[in-house]
């Protein structure tokens, strides 16, 4: 072993916690392309700055995943090559693991599953070298489990989610344990056990309220709104949506806000209120486009097309399908729905949308 790679003499922090927060803001204010050149000025190698950056990026994963991914990707690249000595002891490995976890989590929201998987592998290789590795790897396991849910590997999720929940409780991470319950509830709904799913989410909301976790309470209420709608209880669905809206706005959870607006559109549509439904879908679409969740953008275009066909606005419906198809192609979505997608494309060519194919293609997307 060569002494040159052992991190002594020690590097003491030059930046205070408050300065670190300001330094992180300066980093965000500097365009990514200009950062490496003024790294010293931005204190980009300082662990206090990096800690503030990762804290802020973690909260952005759900509010603007595309930004979070780009920022995390830049910082990861900056720290990884060349092999910069960062902070003290395990801090370099920790920051690299955390940034990879953030990038992977953001990719998951962006429907970039392969990329998410690659980031998760990177995160694991660094997290194993950190102190408190068990908690870091457990947090990573949650992300992988969420990815499995999105890939509809339900048996695996139902088996593993309670085990991880127990593990998080032992590690003192109650909010992560609650998040495992979210996955369980979602799988129950996907496998047609709606009543059980609603019961799980009611438990989640009670627990989130008890531990005063507004973020999880907002997501829990939003999900309950979806589930009550599926169960046909539009009154309860609307009540939950109304409860969720300010909580999601307060926590700037734009991913779930887009999904909630989509759900409200569905509720109005089922109540026969096409105009209100159209408005809600359009605002969901705007939100989803702004934050770059392309899977949802494509799905909402298809829902809008269906509604416009109902309203006899065939040409506008055609435009919505035309807007969705390139995204579906680029992101290689719905590989299982290849046949339906072909029928839809063909019907579009004949300028007579095949309603069955449209609904079938939409059925391959995760519900809003």
């Amino acid at each position, binding site marked *: 072993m*060569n*002494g*040159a790679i052992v991190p*002594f003499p020690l590097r003491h922090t030059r930046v205070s*916690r*408050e300065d670190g927060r300001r330094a992180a803001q300066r980093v965000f204010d500097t365009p990514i392309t200009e950062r490496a050149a003024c790294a010293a000025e931005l204190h980009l190698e300082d662990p206090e700055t990096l*800690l503030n950056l990762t804290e802020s990026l973690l909260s952005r994963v759900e509010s603007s995943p595309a930004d979070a991914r780009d920022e995390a990707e830049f910082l990861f690249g900056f720290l990884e090559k060349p092999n910069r000595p960062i*902070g003290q002891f395990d801090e370099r490995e920790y920051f690299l693991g955390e940034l990879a976890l953030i990038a992977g989590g953001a990719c998951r929201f962006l429907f970039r599953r392969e990329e998410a998987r690659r980031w998760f592998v990177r995160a694991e290789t660094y997290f194993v070298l950190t*102190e408190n590795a068990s908690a870091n790897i*457990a947090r990573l396991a949650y992300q992988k489990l969420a990815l499995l849910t999105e890939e509809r590997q339900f048996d695996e999720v139902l088996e593993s989610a309670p085990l991880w929940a127990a593990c998080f409780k032992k590690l003192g991470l109650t909010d992560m344990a609650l998040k495992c319950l979210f996955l369980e509830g979602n799988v129950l709904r996907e496998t047609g056990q709606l009543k059980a799913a609603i019961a799980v989410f009611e438990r989640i909301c009670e627990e989130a309220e008890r531990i005063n976790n507004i973020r999880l309470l907002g997501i829990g209420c939003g999900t309950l709104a979806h589930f009550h709608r599926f169960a046909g209880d539009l009154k309860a669905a609307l009540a939950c949506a109304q409860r969720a809206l300010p909580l999601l706005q307060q926590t700037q959870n734009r991913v779930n806000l887009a999904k909630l607006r989509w759900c409200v559109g569905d509720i109005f549509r089922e109540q026969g209120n096409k105009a209100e439904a159209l408005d809600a879908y359009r605002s969901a679409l705007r939100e989803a486009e702004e934050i770059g969740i392309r899977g949802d953008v494509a799905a909402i275009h298809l829902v809008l097309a269906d509604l416009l066909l109902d309203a006899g606005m065939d040409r506008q419906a055609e435009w919505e399908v035309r807007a969705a198809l390139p995204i579906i192609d680029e992101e290689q979505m719905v590989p299982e729905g290849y046949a339906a997608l072909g029928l839809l494309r063909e019907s579009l060519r004949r300028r007579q949308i095949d309603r069955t194919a449209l609904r079938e293609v939409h059925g391959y997307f995760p519900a809003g």
Partner: protein
Amino acid sequence: MSTNSTHRDEDVAAVFGRARGAIRSTLEAQYFVPEEDAQEIELSLYEWFHRFSRRPGTSSPVATLRPTLFRMTCKAAQDYWLWKHHGGRITDDTIRFALNRDPEEIAIELELRVSRTDEEST
């Protein structure tokens, strides 16, 4: 700075303050790190522990993170000697003996010792 983070900072300072004696004696008496260098390592451990306690996944009470602090103390001492000897063979038997011990094992002993002192003082 929010009240929560101020409280957390105070807890970190208190936990570190109570562990300080054990850290110094481990560095100097068990690992034979010279006083001046031990002081430097101690300062680094404080800065590290401060940031470590703010990582996601360490939301539990700061006192429960103390074993990790002790483990890091031992690892820091090991790294110190590796650096001092440029990664080469360490010939001093007393140092070699200390370095051969599992940091985990020493950390458990330290934790037991400090928690016993804590109990006696309350």
